[in-house]
């Protein structure tokens, strides 16, 4: 009997020794830093507004990304310069943009709630917003990604399913043009379904995607009622001569392969007090952007003055992108134009 007890005790001691040494070895083998690197993207504090403070994890990631991007950009620029000559325009442009690269981690400002509105009477369907968006947000040129889609709809019934987004001629008098991008919904289904919390709504109302966390399951694309999300089906390519150097870590930093992206209301501009590129570029001034909480903001004015509506209200997502019928169509419609069509 005692012999048996002794044996089991010895067995136990042996097992303990083996376990201790394996854990010690594995602890040394997997260095703490390596472990940390694996676990970085999980810092929960990224979700909260404090990200604005310098030294926050988001800021840190932004700085790291900036260094890497500069390195990549310089290498690309060198390639261009060696093939086209040091004093070619392309080379100079590339070098200039590389030097200007800045990746920000700006957090939301207190008490701000962004919203956008679009005058359906003014929009002429020229798609300039979509092109400006591609340029501003470094969208992969090889993948044909466009965050803004412009739908052409019959004037009588603005039902999305009858829309046409492949029109070649605009404006037509019996049609309205309805640009659609992310609506930055108040109750976004896309963020609810994401299995790894790679996408969420910020306190200032911008729905963002963290490209370092997205696992590419495309569940959010399936859940979005506005088809606003785009997936990088291959490695996106942006020529450095066209790179927009003003970047935000949650916005227009060049994306990796197999992650989802979408409109961020130009987070890199609006968080610094600017307006999105599409608002700036619109030739007829159809777009209005501002802070819903500010009684003097243009967005409040148009909503109060004209009244607004949203697309697919039945989806129950409460979009913060409004449409309204403003005072008149630009350019002015000829009387009787409908009759001719």
């Amino acid at each position, binding site marked *: 009997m005692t012999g048996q007890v002794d044996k089991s005790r010895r067995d136990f001691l042996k097992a303990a020794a083996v376990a201790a040494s394996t854990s010690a070895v594995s602890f040394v083998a997997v260095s703490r830093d390596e472990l940390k690197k*694996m676990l970085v993207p999980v810092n929960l504090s990224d979700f909260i507004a404090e990200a604005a403070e310098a030294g926050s994890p988001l800021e840190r990631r932004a700085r790291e990304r900036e260094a890497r991007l500069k390195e990549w950009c310089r290498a690309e620029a060198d390639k261009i310069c060696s093939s086209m000559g040091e004093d070619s325009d392309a080379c100079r442009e590339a070098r200039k943009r590389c030097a200007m690269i800045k990746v920000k981690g700006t957090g939301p400002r207190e008490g701000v709630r962004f919203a956008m509105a679009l005058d359906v009477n003014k929009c002429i369907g020229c798609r300039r917003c979509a092109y400006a968006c591609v340029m501003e947000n470094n969208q992969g040129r090889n*993948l044909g990604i466009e965050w803004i889609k412009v739908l052409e709809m019959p004037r009588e019934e603005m039902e999305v*399913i*009858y829309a046409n987004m492949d029109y070649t001629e605009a404006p037509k008098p019996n049609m309205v043009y309805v640009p659609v991008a992310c609506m930055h919904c108040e109750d976004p289904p896309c963020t609810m*379904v994401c299995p790894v919390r790679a996408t969420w709504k910020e306190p200032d109302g911008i729905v963002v995607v963290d490209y370092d966390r997205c*696992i590419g399951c495309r569940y959010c694309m*399936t859940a979005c009622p506005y088809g606003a999300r785009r997936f990088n089906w291959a490695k996106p390519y942006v020529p450095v001569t066209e790179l927009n150097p003003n970047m935000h870590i949650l916005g227009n930093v060049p994306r990796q392969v197999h992650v989802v992206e979408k409109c961020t209301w130009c987070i890199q501009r609006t968080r610094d007090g600017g307006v999105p590129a599409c608002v700036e570029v619109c030739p007829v001034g159809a777009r209005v952007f501002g802070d819903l909480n500010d009684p003097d903001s243009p967005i409040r004015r148009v909503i109060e003055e004209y009244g607004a509506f949203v697309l697919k209200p*039945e989806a129950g997502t409460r979009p913060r992108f409004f449409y309204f019928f403003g005072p008149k169509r630009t350019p002015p419609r000829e009387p009787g134009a409908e009759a001719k069509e």
Partner: protein
Amino acid sequence: MSSQGSSFIDTIKFVIKEALLTGGPRYYLAALGLLIIALYGMYLWIFVQHAPIFLGAEEGGLILTALNDSVPWGIYISFFVFWVGVAAAGIVFGIAAYVFGDKEFKKVAVLGEVQAVAAIVTVLLLIVVDIGRPLRALVLMPQLPNLRSMLDWDFIVLTGYLALNLIGMLVTVHYYRQDKPIPRKFIVPFITIAAPFAIGIHTVTAFISQALTARPIWNSPLLAPRYVATAFASGPAILLLALYLAERYIKGFKVDFSVYRKTLYVIVGSLVVGLYFTLSEVHEIFWYTTEPAKKAQAQTLFLGYHLPYLAKLMWLWIGLGIAAVILGIVPRVHNTKRGIIFVSILTIIAVVAEKTMTIIIPGFIPSTLGEVKPYYPTAIEIGITIGVHAIGVLVYLLLARPALKAVMTHYFSGSGAKH
């Protein structure tokens, strides 16, 4: 354990040894064939997926599939849905055996567990090949679960069910191998947990798509019940097929005809319910629905607008489903094993038609903005899907033989298993 003469470790060793080391040339040939197909599928997947991520290459990526922003889920997720159903229905034999105490079913209940394990392995692999960043998913999912996301719940219940069935199978093998009955202390709690779990995995899988307001055709409260109903037709049908093959290829293994007969009841009953649900959905969509998107998607599904093969599959389900029901109640058919196997095969084809592309694809055509991008899976996608299935069948093959051998030690003592 050790006082009983054999420990659990020995059982695992037994399973591994039986799976790998005993078997005739035909067995090895089959395993080798499956392995080659699986490896080829894996090679294709690495070609698609890993080239850009790990090797830093500029080419590759999911762009090689036919998926796009309009149709972001395709053939992988389609078959994912089907195999979740098959896994769920693996428990049918177990219920018959342990809930209703049917002695004949006890002999084959373990096969249901093996089937569930193999099906869940297939399911998990189908997710892995579908998502863009599998490694990142493995690291992030446990750290950042979003419990409002159905995908996380699905992952939890699927892995739970996989563990449950592996344990069930190993315990069964453990006791039968020593010619002991399974203790009630184990089997009662096991079946009480496993049976609702089986319904649960399929329900949660249906919930992934059911409540998305963006996809009106999925937006039917009947989706989850319909998943479960048709699963309980296809799962037992596959079980019967496996039983039939086991009887042919394992010497001395005999199954009572009552097993076939009673399982056929389950199949026919589930088919009737499934067809009835389809009818109910058709009625809602074509008689009263005023939602334009739902109507347009239903037209893609039933009338073949934009994508003719979808309608063909849908009508195949309805036609073969009805045929299987009618044949299943004809005495001349359900009185012979061959007749029952024929009905089973019809059922499997019908449910594959119903549960795969016809569930997933119409949700995307036309898409939320009315865009129509017909989806035809590319050769690479199909190859990867076949490769994944080869792994599933291989798992089935490897596990089924040791399990059946243990069963034979207990119930048919004396006869040895040869390939």
